[in-house]
């Protein structure tokens, strides 16, 4: 190979590598990014069966049921619609009634949302941003009276 050919092959190799990495990145973004929904959004959303999403809202008052062992069921609401959620594991320390949560998982065929992770806020000033924005857009947001 001449010097020029060598240089060209190195550059082509580098570009092919970058191209492959870019392709992989955008494929992964399409496949692995999970969308965030509030309960009322779900009627208009077209979800594939088993598609992973993030479901956010407030934990509805009086719906927390601690079942056998480590399974917990509760409803997530945006004050318009409710979704029943089950979760097996330890709930975050700040999980309470009428607090904002984000749950991640997928719907079971019977319409119950099976969460494999539940995130609550980090401290009393903080509501998950997605939930706060969602509630604001639905006009049911109340400023927290923490101060």
């Amino acid at each position, binding site marked *: 190979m001449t010097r020029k050919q060598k240089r060209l092959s190195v550059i082509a190799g580098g570009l092919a590598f970058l191209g492959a990495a870019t392709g*992989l*990145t955008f494929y992964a973004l399409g496949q*692995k990014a999970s969308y*965030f929904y509030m309960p009322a959004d779900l009627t208009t959303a077209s979800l594939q069966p088993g598609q992973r999403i*993030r479901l956010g809202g407030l934990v509805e008052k009086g719906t927390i049921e601690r079942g056998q062992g480590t399974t917990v069921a509760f409803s997530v609401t945006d004050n318009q619609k409710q979704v029943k959620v089950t979760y097996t594991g330890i709930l975050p320390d700040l999980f309470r009634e009428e607090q904002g949560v984000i749950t991640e998982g997928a719907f079971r065929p019977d319409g119950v949302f099976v969460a494999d992770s539940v995130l609550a806020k980090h401290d*009393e000033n903080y509501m998950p941003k997605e939930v706060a924005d969602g509630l604001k857009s639905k006009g049911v947001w109340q400023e927290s009276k923490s101060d």
Partner: protein
Amino acid sequence: MVETGHFALVLAFALSLVQTLVPLFGARINNQKMMAVGGPVAVTGFALTALSFAALATAYATSDFSVANVWDNSHSLQPLIYKITGTWGNHEGSMLLWVLILTFFGALVAAFGSNLPATLRANVLAVQGAIGATFLLFILATSNPFARLNPAPIEGRDLNPILQDLGLAIHPPLLYLGYVGFSICFSFSVAALIEGRIDASWARWVRPWTLVAWMFLTGGIAMGSYWAYYELGWGGFWFWDPVENASFMPWLAGTALLHSAIVMEKRSALKIWTLLLAILTFSLSLLGTFLVRSGVLTSVHAFATDPTRGVFILCILTLFIGGSLALFAFRASRLTAGGLFHPVSREGALVLNNLFLTTATATVLIGTLYPLVVEAVSADKISVGAPFFNLTFGPLMVPLLVVVPFGPLLAWKRGDIFAVAQRLMAAFAAALLAVLVTALFIDGASVFAALGVGLAFWLICGALTDIAVKSGFGSVAPGIMLRRFAGLPRSVFGTALAHLGLGLTTLGIVGTLCFGTEKILSMHAGETVQLSGHTLRFEGLYPAQGPNYSEDRGRFALLGADGSTTAMITSSKRSYPVRQMTTTESGIKTIGFSQLYLSLGDEATDGSVVVRLWWKPLVTLIWGGGLVMMAGAAMSLMDRRLRVGAPSRRRKSAGAVPSASLP
């Protein structure tokens, strides 16, 4: 005292303006006196910022609740250590720490840069001063930590309980030393662009700063990871949280910079690329500061969500990243390209390293920013988490790790890949053995797990091979070998240690992810549970009182083979009355390099308690590897070659290594 601190900060801002303008202008008209102003001003600016920081720390230590910031983030009952660390456990204080470290690095250049060319030194200090000026203005204008309250409240509102931990004393200072340390590399790059000149001595100057910053950033990330691991009670060591990514991107780019600076110093090649990398690395640090501090992301790190702050930092970001890149575009063509090399060579290997690391940085960047972009252009809210990063970052890292042992063994300019492969036969055999042993003797080991263990051993043995080959193991008499070993440059040990640490971290990650076990169950007092050969008995919940919290301690007995108690593990639920917050303190028992980790859940009505247990094999190696990497950087820093100003000493021993095999 508090007003003194505020006043000192205003003075520091004024001085940083002087530090920016006077040396810059002096360098332009070649006025020695004006250029010399930079040094003393930088040192004074650091002293004033330190005074200001000390004033705030004193207000915290003495619980002066007339200061709004102290009232908001402290409590008189907190232990003294958390009162002091609370100084930077909030937005204003952490920005002050950021600027303190920035001016500290500027003062270091002033103090140790006496042998730098005068114009370069003046320009470096000017750029450093400009960064300091913008951030000082940011603090003074939007985040004043010294604002008073009148009347002064009697009691404070307590520090966020999650931050009431020793981790807060270590993680932010280390992380900032790393983040902000890259500002020096940035200032050197911009100064070189202003002058339109760059040479090998420039690289010799930049490399130690890169090493220092990289060392601290490695420690800061490792410490942050361990803190999150034991404090959050989720048992994970890395969550691909945007805030973690914000610190990981400068680390990846900084690692690339560390390697390309070697090529530049040794071979005068890759000059322009190295300069660009230095700019990009600090730009990513600034981006990280923006992501964490602006409130665009919600996390435990985002203390404040005041939109004016976000806009202000965005302006700083645009100014420095845009300005430096524009300068790069105009001036880079003036810089002359350096030496040529064959693709198969040490330089080639380092270019490959850079290609992989910068691409990996780009994927992390895209994954981190994509949700923000999508939300800005549409109403959709998405999250990009571990599945994305596992699919993109993983495939990029694995080939890089495979080629790591080749790099240090290849010769400069033109290397012999087959000769290197031959030297690595023993390391390859060890890795293969590790794969076979894992696959055959460990129950439930998947093919991936076995290959992962093999990869870790390949890295570890490859690093040892590097040292062995360079000391002439197997080819010379033991006496000469020892002498060669002792005569090896420190940077050779540094490289080997850092690569060894990488192998250890890999082993820890593979061990934890592939062989870890987990159980969630509800337990009554007196019940026992088995996990990966360990037997635990739940002894019950015991109430206890801390200085500013009350807690329920769940006590667990680790039982030996004969049923006797060998250790007690305690996990507790703490409740902090002031913030009405509950936290979980995980119970951890370290056994060898592995850990038994347990975390207490809620108490059910029948008196049983939900307990989550993990067996995490080799998990401590994840952070231990980080410490070894830090040691490698420290070792490289001690290399005589990098001690600027140290007289160059001829190596005395006659049996020194042939220079061709030296890096």
